[in-house]
């Protein structure tokens, strides 16, 4: 057992976990943050994507201990109260989700994509960048639309800040 100290959605937490505990298990089983999902065993599907120190990571593919001292943001931590993150709003407005299972990972990856590419996003880039997130419902058409839409919204909201 080890104590892992980290910040999750802005809140400092210390959790005693078995050493083999994965970050996704810490989030789901110990902190009850069940918005982060597990869809495969091989780091392929991306349902588990969260942000660690501002970068997208697959939380099923790292030990909780590797996140010691880090700042983790999950799907539960990106809205400001009732105000949705522009990426969340864009997924809703563009019907970028159906069953919702891949959605948290998609949204967390998509925010990272927009942040890395700034305003230089086009459809082909979004499709290439989404390679690590699998969706079985939407055929990606509306997810791609949502990411491009959100890229515009995030630019506007950054300009406003």
């Amino acid at each position, binding site marked *: 057992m080890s104590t892992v100290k980290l910040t999750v959605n802005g809140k400092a937490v210390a959790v005693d976990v*078995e050493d*083999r505990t994965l970050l996704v298990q810490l989030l*789901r089983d110990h902190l*009850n*943050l*069940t*918005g*982060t*999902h*597990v*869809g*495969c*065993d*091989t780091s*392929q*599907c991306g*349902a588990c994507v969260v942000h660690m120190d501002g970068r997208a990571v697959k939380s099923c593919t790292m030990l909780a201990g590797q996140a010691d001292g880090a700042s983790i943001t*999950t*799907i*539960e931590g990106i*809205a400001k109260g009732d105000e*949705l993150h522009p990426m*969340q709003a864009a*997924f*809703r*407005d563009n*019907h970028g*989700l*159906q*069953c*919702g*299972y*891949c*959605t*948290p990972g998609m*949204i967390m990856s998509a925010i990272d994509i927009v942040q890395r590419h700034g305003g230089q996003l086009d*459809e*082909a880039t*979004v*499709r*290439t960048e*989404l*390679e690590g*997130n*699998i*969706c*079985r*419902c*939407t*055929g*990606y*058409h*509306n*997810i*791609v639309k949502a990411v491009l839409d959100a890229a515009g919204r995030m630019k506007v909201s950054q300009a406003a800040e």
Partner: protein
Amino acid sequence: MGVEGIGARVVRKEDKRFITGKGRYVDDIKLTGMTHAHFIRSPHAHAKVKGIDSSAALKMPGVVAVLTGQQIVDDKVGNLICGWAITSKDGSPMKMGAWPAMAPETVRFVGQAVAVVIAESKNLARDAAEAVVVNYEELPAVADVHAAIKPGAPQLHPEAPGNQVYDWVIGDEGATDAAFAKAANVVKLDVTNNRLAPNAMEPRAAIADYDAAEEHFTLYTTSQNPHVARLVLSAFYNIAPEHKLRVIAPDVGGGFGSKIFIYPEEMVALWASKKVGRPVKWTGDRTEAFLTDAHGRDHVTHAEMAFDANNKITGLKVKTYANFGAYMSLFSSSVPTYLYATLLSGQYNIPAIHAEVVGVYTNTTPVDAYRGAGRPEASYLIERLMETAARQLKVDPAQLRRTNFITTFPHQTPVIMAYDTGDFNASLDAAMKAIDYAGFPARKAKAKADGKLRGIGVSCYIEACGIAPSKAVGSLGAGVGLWESAEVRVNPVGTIEILTGSHSHGQGHETTFCQLVAERLGVPISQVSIVHGDTDKVQFGMGTYGSRSAAVGLTAILKAMEKMEAKAKKIAAHALEASEADIVIENGEFKVTGTDKAIALPMVALAAYTAHNLPDGMEPGLKESAFYDPTNFTFPAGTYICELEVDPGTGKTSFVNFVAADDFGRLINPMIVEGQVHGGLVQGIGQALLEHAIYDANGQPVTASFMDYAMPRADDVPSFNLSHTTTLCPGNPLGIKGCGEAGAIGASAAVINAITDAIGKNNLEMPATPDRVWRTIHAG
């Protein structure tokens, strides 16, 4: 149409919880005292279980129990059932071997469970499973249908000699032979419809909770049809009588057919919960999904089509071998028979059809309904035949289809189905216009100059949805009726709850079903809630599959609404001292037509519940229910056209354009309908280009993870150009046909027709991987 009524592109009500991480899936649920199950699964495709030694595992920390297949048999838990009886051409019933929830004696596919460890945590259960020693005696195995039907092949079940489940026929053999005898041209084709893994993103999961004092079970499960699950668990598996078993399917992360079936893991969790006296949770991992979720497709077919001198089809002969895997799954028997062969007429006037389907056991994961279920196999076969015929007869493939389209309705095909309505020319026209079909030769020539092989492929699909008229399916062997139920509850303050037996696992029912209420009553959808997925709340229902929720489920809601409205009008007329016939419902008010007299819905509802001043003899309350049984299948149809380029150097395919023109009848929410088409198209494209569940000759799966099985990713597929042509379905009052499966049914033929057009060679099997395409291009 109101802003939230029928036809409006209303943003989904359910999305808020999904985009904020507040969805509630089975694995998100924790119960006090909950234990965790890990299954011990066979590594062999075929073996005798000689013994199970769990003594070491039982001494390990946190282990509660190790339970085996023999124990579940001793406790008289029933074997898994197949719910659709098929009769072979010799009149004999289909031949099935027993399928116990965990194998006591013989395992017949890799992944079949033989025992389960129950422990305090998932990790501890997994650790202990490593220490359970199972002694197997390997037996020879067989994985594909050709090998399975050979004399001397390893036999799976003594009940099914030759590994044959049934040999079933449909149509008029004599008339078909006569058509071929007179044919001007005959086109022949062999096709394999590749086996697919459904891969809903949420792995299956179950939590069983036994209450010893009440002798009552609660099951949380990833199900498309919780009421059917309860019925089967009660009536056939001896788990508990229905009133002692509550089944809850909360948010479910996709199904595509794979979550229709009641699986061994749910049965074992329920049984084990009673045995250990604590809640038992099982969550599958992705490899377990590949090994145990029912697979789809897996047909091997030879077909011949006869034409007269005017290129009119005169006859069709089909022989299909369907691989069922090691056991007959719940609806498996119906898929290659009544869901496949009944659609072999496609969109065409075919006077004579004869089809024979041989169902075969192999040492592989059981096969059952997967998005489209039989209809993709039929559509792929017919549309590959039409394309092959056009090439052989040297006519334009679109024109050959037009020459043979059914243009008058109703149309009785030679294979049971009576198409009610459609306009196949309209959807073909729309798709050809959208893709600029006429301009294709110039584009092909330009691509050739750039070193690329460009092709165009047409696919005109039809499907039978809205499953289904109970009497009709009963006469064909179905063990259940396929109606739907609904209840409308108007609360005393005028808010509305709609209880439905349909189940949403991505389809957006919480929005579209509210839109019907908004349309009829003029109330905002925020005043309406949809309740589904809990057998304690909704009395009964048949669930969601076969594109049936709008055509059947929503019609049941409409019927209940009509009853509720009739009563509410009586109350309003009484309160307004007007004639009931003069009451109209607008903007949430009951108005006396032609006057300014009105009473708002909440006041009518309150009057119904206070019952201070109701018409004489009227019961208090405002709640009505309805059961709706459709009169026919519905027949969504359309045309998909795919234009693509093949790089002759690598065999890689790149999409140029993909257009879809669908006729789904009336659309409730076009945004959601388009989303269903997008998703279906990508499953069809996935089958055509990427996906294949592969076994080696000994029955070992070689594609049991996302590293080996190619799921479509965002950069594998194009954006789509969709349009709709509309003929209203005459079979239901809303005119709905259903849209859930069309994409998966029609897309794969369009892709393969386009690739074979591009490379100038007709024989190409799915998935058309770059390797396979390159070899086909460069084959002698």
